[in-house]
């Protein structure tokens, strides 16, 4: 399914800003030719991680390798990377047409026809100054650069702030179609987990600077489930199976749990015990994994 050599290899990567630890001894790998979701709450360290991986920032300690080499100030690595971030700044008085004029100088795989089609899809005004664009139109500029550059490694950091549902769907459709035709490694950071869940082949969840999940999406999809049944039965079942309970709710004599580590044996046991087992969405799993008490309170 994927090449053996990972495109991104990170070992014990720590990044401090003064006394604030943005990344705390992070280790992970991203396989080649995959769409990886980098998920986590605001301030979890997603953007910092991408800044280090794209050479925009320097690690405090530890190692980050992209295509086998440290990315910072490394032209032969950076040549393969497109980094689309929500907070991208543009020179004064630039218009989208200046962006689409200059980006091809830097991205050798640039497809001008594809860029033109995307401009039409997103109904982006080319001659309006970037400062005057709406938030959604500004996001569209980045999305178009990220797709049309066809860089072997493309990062999208919250690429669709302000894009409406139709525009987001266009982004997903174009991304998937182009990825199918030109396989490459894509890292997508987002809050809208349910929207992208079907796109992702690999999922990395980061919380407070630490990696809390790093697994193929297929594995995660079946891995967590909600189990409902009489309180006593549920307690016995959890103890018998040694399940990790991420969340628990009770109503009268009935208990409902959200458990991690579900496999075929557990599933069969639940059915035989008369318990009701339903798989949960990726978003629910991520929320329970990263939210703690706060996420529960807000639900």
């Amino acid at each position, binding site marked *: 399914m994927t090449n053996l050599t990972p495109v991104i290899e990170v070992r014990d990567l720590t990044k401090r800003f003064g006394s604030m630890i943005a990344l705390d001894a992070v280790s992970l790998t991203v396989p080649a030719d995959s769409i990886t979701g980098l998920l986590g709450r605001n301030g979890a360290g997603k953007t910092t991680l991408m800044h280090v991986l794209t050479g925009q920032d320097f690690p405090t300690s530890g190692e980050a390798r992209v295509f086998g080499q440290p990315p910072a100030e490394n*032209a032969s690595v950076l040549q393969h990377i497109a980094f689309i971030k929500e907070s991208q700044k543009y020179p004064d008085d630039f218009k989208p047409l200046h962006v689409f004029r200059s980006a091809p100088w830097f991205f050798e795989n640039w497809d001008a026809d594809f860029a033109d089609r995307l401009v039409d899809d997103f109904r982006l005004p080319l001659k309006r100054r970037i400062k005057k664009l709406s938030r959604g139109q500004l996001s569209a500029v980045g999305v178009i650069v990220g797709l049309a550059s066809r860089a072997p490694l493309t990062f999208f950091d919250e690429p669709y702030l302000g894009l409406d549902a139709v525009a987001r769907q266009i982004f997903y459709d174009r991304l998937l179609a182009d990825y*199918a035709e030109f396989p490459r490694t894509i890292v997508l950071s987002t809050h809208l987990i349910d929207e992208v869940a079907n796109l992702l082949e690999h999922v990395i969840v980061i919380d407070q600077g630490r990696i809390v999940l790093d697994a193929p999406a297929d594995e995660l999809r079946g891995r967590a489930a909600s189990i409902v049944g009489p309180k006593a039965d549920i307690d016995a079942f959890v103890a018998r199976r040694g399940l990790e309970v991420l969340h628990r709710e009770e109503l009268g004599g009935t208990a409902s749990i959200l458990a991690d580590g579900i496999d075929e044996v557990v599933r069969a046991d639940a059915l035989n015990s008369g318990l009701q087992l339903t798989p949960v969405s990726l978003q629910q799993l991520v929320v329970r994994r990263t939210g703690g008490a706060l996420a529960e309170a807000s639900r």
Partner: protein
Amino acid sequence: MTTVALAESSARIAGPRTPGAFARVWRVVRLHYANRMNSIAVPLIIAAFIVTVYLVVQTLIVSATGQNAESGQGDSPGLVYFLPYQVVFAVQAMNLTFAYALGLSSTRRDFSLGTWLMFLIQSAGFAVLFTALSYLEQWTSGWGLHAEIFHTVVYGTGSVGQRLLTFFAGILLFQCIGSVFGAAFVRWRAFGMYVLSAALVVLLLGAVALITFTDSWGAVGRWFVAVGPAGFSAWLLVPAAMFAVIGHLALRRATPKS
């Protein structure tokens, strides 16, 4: 997944080759000229405005006094107002284009070298233009008004080489001042600008104090006369180069902050 099945069925995307060192620097130069309004049109408009204002004033003086200003009144250093804009231009080139160039996966090193090359091109271009205008001014007797804007003792009225060098060094110096402030801002934000401003003030004040206390103003005056306009212009390239090196070093570990 269906996407994976599709992915397997088609050819892999080709890894782009890494362009040579000069190609990487040159695309940064092109980036600075991507929006020609900012890098070419605006400076030309500013220069044209300065010249127009001066010629109008000169016309008014001539018509009011009824005489041609032939004894030095026609001489104007007005073109120096072109220089502050070079500082602004350089700060902008450093600050906003830095974040964009890194967004396009340029290295800091390539960005810095490309930006300095752009300054050289920019200074050389305007030096050629102003030198050509200085000869035109000479041949048209100061645009028919005995006005002296480009052909003036302030910038020297020597050989073509001296004129080119003076305009080139003057514009380049101010771009270098702007860019070192821009680089300090990119690296250390406002704090960097404060420290740099303070350092420059201390340096200038120190030099003035040194000359005063050692009673050397006479020697300084003689030095100006001795080196002449061409020599002085050449000396301007020394602080320009110094600023360039400081700016380059400041950029080495700068990060595009949001």
